[in-house]
């Protein structure tokens, strides 16, 4: 072939055209490969894949779930969370996630009540759930709770000096009410003197430490509500039951006189002996997955007495050193005094009561709210302290989480999905001393030496030639 300047130009143009076309096609194929993806998990036990139980929950999602991760710019932490979330994203594309550095968004962190580095905020249909530890069990159960979302209504009784879910006073429960709103739970107040009926669609009635005696008519309304199968959260401060004695009797409980004092709290730098710590929780559905210490200021003790058709379970108990102090708290040296009827710990601060829901209400509950899955049993929580959810103490230890747990238990079906963590199958490694020495010798001495010697021999031979 004869080549002149003209053919040179032609070849050059041809080359250019080829290059453009080829790179475009390659790029296109690459793009297609990110659009149509098939993935195969080769690990033993499919450790990169969502478990069967989680997949069932994710299948029920009908609109996007937005996950916001509040994590500092640390590769290790973020990668671990991303790894978990990607398993959900691979299975269902409608799960989206974004990372936020909590240091740069302090307002948002405060608004959402984020407390832990690496906390997740899951949003679905305007409701949100928080997960502090990004493991599959935590995320899936949060999704499950979001799915059951529906309408949940807490009704706070008012008119007797109760703690209000709206006010910001130290003794009020405004912060707790805000937290309920964020979770999509409506917290409303009810004054029985104005509206002498408890609404039908109440998920749980809250008696937040009344300070004035309730009238017998009001107590009767509450009793009617309970007899129809309503749920109740009762926070009872130390002292008088303020006219609610018939309820205590119905629950088969007794309020012990006096305030619980716990000198062991001083070891933790708390100067006030009336602050009671609870550090261990029994395996009860209301306490599932809960292990943080909680703090109860000025709590009163409860004990079972008499017959009841509820099944009471103690859920919060003090340490052994605590006792109920009936004398004045002003004394410099508080002492346990058995003669005055004081009681030595462990004392029960909280009871969870449950009984099968009365038949009439069971049908009713099913029809009023289709989306919600109300508990199949009637549930009541009686706590001998109201301060732990008050604004001034809500941030102490796990108090907020305890409150959320209690409300969840009272208002929601609590089928907990147990997902055992995926374990690597190859964790055992027992090398005998001989084996480990052999491995070291072979890979560190023998093989390199073999290569170097062969190379030297070949080089030497070729030089001689």
């Amino acid at each position: 072939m004869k080549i002149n300047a003209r053919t040179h130009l032609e070849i050059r143009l041809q080359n250019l055209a080829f290059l453009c076309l080829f790179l475009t096609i390659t790029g296109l194929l690459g793009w297609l490969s990110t659009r149509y993806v098939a993935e195969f998990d080769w690990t033993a036990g499919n450790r990169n894949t969502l478990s069967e139980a989680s997949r069932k929950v994710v299948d029920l999602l009908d609109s996007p779930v937005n996950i916001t991760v509040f994590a500092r710019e640390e590769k290790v932490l973020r990668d671990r969370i991303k790894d978990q979330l990607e398993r959900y994203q691979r299975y269902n594309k409608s799960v989206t996630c974004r990372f936020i550095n909590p240091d740069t968004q302090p307002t948002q962190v405060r608004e959402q009540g984020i407390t832990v580095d690496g906390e997740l905020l899951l949003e679905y249909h305007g409701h949100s759930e928080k997960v502090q530890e990004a493991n599959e069990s935590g995320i899936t159960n949060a999704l499950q709770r979001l799915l059951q979302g529906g309408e949940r209504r807490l009704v706070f009784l008012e008119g007797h000096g109760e703690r209000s879910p709206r006010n910001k006073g130290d003794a009020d429960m405004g912060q707790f009410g805000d937290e309920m709103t964020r979770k999509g739970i409506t917290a409303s107040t009810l004054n029985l003197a104005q509206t002498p009926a408890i609404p039908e669609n109440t998920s749980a009635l809250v008696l937040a430490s009344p300070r004035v005696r309730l009238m017998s008519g009001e107590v009767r309304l509450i009793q009617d509500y309970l007899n129809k199968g309503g749920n109740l959260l009762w926070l009872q401060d130390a002292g008088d039951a303020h006219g609610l004695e018939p309820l205590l009797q119905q629950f088969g409980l007794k309020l012990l006189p006096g305030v619980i004092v716990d000198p062991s709290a001083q070891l933790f730098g708390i100067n006030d002996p009336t602050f009671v710590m609870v550090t261990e929780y029994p395996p009860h559905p209301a306490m599932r997955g809960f292990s943080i210490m909680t703090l109860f200021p000025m709590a009163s003790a409860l004990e079972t007495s008499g017959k009841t058709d509820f099944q009471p379970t103690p859920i919060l108990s003090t340490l052994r050193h605590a006792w109920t102090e009936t004398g004045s708290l002003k004394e410099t040296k508080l002492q346990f005094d058995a003669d005055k009827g004081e009681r030595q710990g462990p004392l029960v601060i909280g009871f969870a009561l449950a009984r099968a829901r009365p038949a009439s209400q069971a049908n009713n509950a099913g029809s009023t709210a289709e989306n919600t899955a109300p508990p199949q049993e009637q549930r009541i929580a009686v706590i001998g302290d109201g301060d732990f959810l008050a604004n001034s103490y809500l941030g102490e230890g796990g108090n907020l989480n305890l409150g959320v747990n209690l409300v969840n238990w009272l208002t929601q079906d609590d089928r907990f999905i147990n997902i055992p963590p995926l374990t690597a199958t190859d964790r055992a490694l027992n090398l005998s001393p001989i084996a480990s020495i052999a491995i070291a010798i072979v890979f560190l001495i023998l093989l390199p030496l073999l290569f170097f010697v062969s190379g030297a021999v070949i080089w030497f031979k070729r030089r001689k030639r």
Partner: protein
Amino acid sequence: MMALIIAAREFRTLFVSPLAWAVLGVMQLILGFMFLTQLDYYLMLQPRIAGMEDAPGVTDMIIVPLFGNTGVLMLLVTPLLTMRLIAEERRNRTLSLLFSAPVSINEIILGKFFGVFAFLLVMVALIALMPLSLLLGGGLDFGKLAACLLAMALLLGSFASIGLYISAHSAQPTVAAVATFGALLGLWIIDWSGKSDDKSGGVLQELSLLHHYENLLRGLVSTTDLAYFFLVIFAFIVLSVHSLDNDRLQK
């Protein structure tokens, strides 16, 4: 068929030069040391993580880091092996001889590529010996190991094909080596600037060798990652053929 003959010759040439032996020896020494320190670390950690519920296993703790390190090391070593492929033929003026031989350019390029790739696979096999030695004292996650080996083979294939393309462009082997190293390192770290959560990082991330390599090392074999490596290998082979063909016509 001719391609195979060229590949075999290329493979043999590598082994009669002391360079390949030196590379093998040095790599084995470094990787052996890394492997042993990692093994030591795991044995020290083992009693502590025994109680953890989702604790990582031998494969996660020893083998995946080993393969991660090997990827970086090969980034430095592969250019030394690929630099002379075409560049040396050109410097020794044997390229015209090759052109005039009854072989198509496709066959020359494929032969050169598979010659080097075969050598790299020998290295992969040597690296695989280390995890397998652990069978003396316990089990392994073979699925994950297979994914790691596949990832390593594909990564080295991409390295070789990029090195071949750059060698086909240069007249000096050393220049080819430096340029290849630069190109590989560039493709390795290209996604460092992009934050993982914003959109602009997405394209750069898809271009990064490291990103796809690490995805495969997790034991999750995705068609996206496989397609990326195959496309890189294929594209640079085609481009090499094209540039050599052009060379022949224009001069």
